[in-house]
């Protein structure tokens, strides 16, 4: 069964058609890369898949279930997790609290107004494990506002990984990172277990190409090319879009 299927998806902002008849199917465990120039509609596609935006037309299914009209919060409970291109974390809280909030989001305890959150050892231990997975265990007690940009990028990924997603959407996880930091994040992303389906948006072709099995090229909201790494790189339309030939 297809992990994530998008069929005939349309989305317009006023007269601007940002997603135009997009169809794609991602198999379970697949590593899919979505590339395209600025304004190609990559992040909008993520926003449609996670439910932050409603499509004008088309359908989205997750392991066969239609989630097109489902609120975003319920999609999280079904196993869709994402990271943001622009860091979207809780700046006043510690890294540990950030990840704890992510874990809490999928438990029924999130409605509990009586117990103390900082005494929920089981939850907090799991949060520490996730931080250790992204190599930030030593900064657990530090407020996010006092960490470096590269560290925050990894917290972004930790927030998504903490939820044990079935489908993980990474929106430019390498944006703004140095070469060494990119290598670290790539190793981190490469270490994600195979039962997680990963879709990644990335500008940096050099880093991203190694990661992907299949690549989708978006341009002006449309799928222009789709195929294996070799097919897409060799395709004349890719060269045209990326090199302006």
């Amino acid at each position, binding site marked *: 069964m297809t992990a994530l299927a998008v069929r005939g998806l349309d989305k317009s902002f006023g007269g601007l058609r940002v997603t135009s008849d997009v169809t794609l199917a991602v198999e379970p465990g697949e590593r899919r890369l979505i590339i395209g120039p600025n304004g190609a509609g990559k992040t909008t596609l993520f926003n449609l898949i*996670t*439910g*932050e935006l409603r499509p004008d037309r088309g359908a989205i299914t997750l392991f066969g279930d239609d989630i097109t009209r489902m*609120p*975003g*919060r*319920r999609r*999280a*409970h079904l196993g869709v*997790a*994402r990271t*943001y291109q622009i860091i*979207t*974390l*809780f*700046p*006043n*809280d510690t890294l540990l*609290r950030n990840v*704890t*909030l*992510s874990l*809490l*989001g*999928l438990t029924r*305890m*999130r*409605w*509990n*107004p*009586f*117990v*103390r*959150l*900082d005494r*929920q050892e089981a939850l907090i231990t799991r949060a520490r494990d996730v931080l250790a997975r992204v190599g930030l265990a030593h900064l657990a007690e530090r407020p996010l506002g006092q960490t470096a940009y590269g560290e925050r990028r990894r917290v972004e990924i930790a*927030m998504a990984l903490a*939820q044990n997603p079935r489908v993980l959407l990474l929106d430019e996880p390498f944006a703004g990172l140095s070469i060494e930091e990119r290598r670290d994040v790539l190793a981190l992303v490469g270490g994600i277990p195979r039962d997680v389906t990963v879709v990644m948006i990335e500008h940096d072709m050099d880093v991203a190409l190694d990661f992907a099995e299949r690549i989708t090229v978006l341009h002006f909201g449309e799928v222009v090319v789709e195929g294996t790494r070799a097919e897409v790189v060799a395709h004349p339309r890719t060269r045209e879009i990326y090199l302006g030939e």
Partner: protein
Amino acid sequence: MKRLALAAALVVLATLPLWVSGTYYVNIASQILFYAIFALGVNVLAGYGGLVSLGHAGLFGIAAYTGAKILTSGHGHLVTDVGALAVTVLAAAVFAVLALRGTGLGFVMITVALGQIVWGVAYRWISLTNGDNGITITGRPSPFGLVLTTPRGFYWATLVVFLLALASMAIFVASPLGAAVRGTRDQPRRMNALGYHVWMIRFVAFLFSGFWTGVAGLLYLYYNQFVSPQAVALTASAEALLMVISGGTGTLLGPIVGAGLVVVIKNVASAYIERWNFVLGAIFVLIVVFMPDGLVPGVTRLARRAMAAVRRPAPAAVAAARGPVGR
């Protein structure tokens, strides 16, 4: 250290009527306590939820007016209190459904409008609210046979309610739901993506805020034995918000300090200066300029800096100890 300070504060508050001379000051202390409950209620939304309400005097007034109506129609205090609080929480639910269509300025404007509707009803629907003349009640409840008609008795009863309010706030803030409320303030998009029901979390916070605002409104009614449109006016909403902002939004102590500040200035300064509003305004300007995050966080920061300066020897002394270094 923290526990010691808390215990000391409790002892001071509990024994206050015994060493403060004159009923006047005991009454002012009672006012501070019920306005502090009001401010704590506003703070749930303004501080932790990031939702600034300028219509909470409407809820405060609904509690006071409903209480007055039930009591003057001949019912007992238990029916009055339960009824008034139920109506207030219901009104808070209606307020929330309408106001939560927006956040930020949109939320502020809808709460202003709702507060003004309540004020309009209080002022103009004379057959219901007796208009500008207000409603007078007689008597205070006597739970467990306690006498609340004396200033001291009323103070102690208000203190108990205040401590309950404070405890419920402390528990709420530290709870998973409290963390979720703050999360919806800081990153609503992310909260939604993490599986939280952002609207429902804000709705619950609004009800919690409305409940304590209603409790404060009832105490106000029992204290004054009277309620008039003045209690529901926009300035009353603004005053509650100023208590929260001047004391420190999103802190437990801030709204209490802010309530103390406003009530004391209102009562004490007005005895000496006719234009006491001017004094209040000047103090707010000073707070905003020098401690933009409020008195409690501001003083805490100053104290921490002073402590650090005391622990560390003065720079001049360090230089002298090191002896002359070239240049």
